[in-house]
């Protein structure tokens, strides 16, 4: 259990595939883990009229977000028999095709890791004070609305 460890969630810019590979590889020594569930949020190049989204610029109320991430983490460990969980979220500019959210849960059996991962993603989307500003191809921008 690492439920007491308050790890850094926000990373500047996109979350790279090698960073994800490192996170996975670190669990090689935790041989009681049988299942990992990973969620990755990727920036889409949605069309907006004649334009398309080329990047999203993320800002946050960081102090409140850190508290909220910690609360979600504590709640997740209470609700699900997890061995590990990690959340990483981008701040600043993330281009379309790049990854801005990485949620990673591990447990003995698959059902718990899968259920926890989905539950955490929903809570992040609904409760964490982060805002995305969509940068369009003509250099205008608009505020993202989560669905």
């Amino acid at each position: 259990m690492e439920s007491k460890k308050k790890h850094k969630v926000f990373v500047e810019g996109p979350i790279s595939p090698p960073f994800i590979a490192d996170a996975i590889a670190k669990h090689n020594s935790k041989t009681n883990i049988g299942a990992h569930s990973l969620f990755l949020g990727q920036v889409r190049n949605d069309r907006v009229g004649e334009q398309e989204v080329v990047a999203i610029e993320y800002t946050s109320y960081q102090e409140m977000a850190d508290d909220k991430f910690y609360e979600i983490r504590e709640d997740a460990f209470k609700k699900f028999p997890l061995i590990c969980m990690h959340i990483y979220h981008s701040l600043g500019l993330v281009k379309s095709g790049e990854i801005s959210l990485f949620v990673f849960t591990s447990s003995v059996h698959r059902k718990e890791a899968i259920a926890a991962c989905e539950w955490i993603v929903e809570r992040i989307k609904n409760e964490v004070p982060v805002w995305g500003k969509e940068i369009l191809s003509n250099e205008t921008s608009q505020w993202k609305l989560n669905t």
Partner: protein
Amino acid sequence: MHILANYLTEFKNSNMEISVLVFGQITDITGKGSLKFTDIKSTGELYQLLLKTYPQLESIKYLMAVNKKIIHENTMLMDEDTIALLPPFSGG
């Protein structure tokens, strides 16, 4: 002592200062990320003052947080409280 305490309370009240942090699309309206106000007693009073100062806020859906906790009803404010104006989140 009692007299001094009263005096300090009054002094404090009359110079009560709160910080207002602004995020997301609301920054487009205020033009800045943080505001200072004095002698605002409640979130309701703050809400009315903000609306008078920035009429465009009328059309914006947002929540307020007092010291990082979202509030859903009128809340008394104290000196050095930090109030955040939170439009709908769009992280992830």
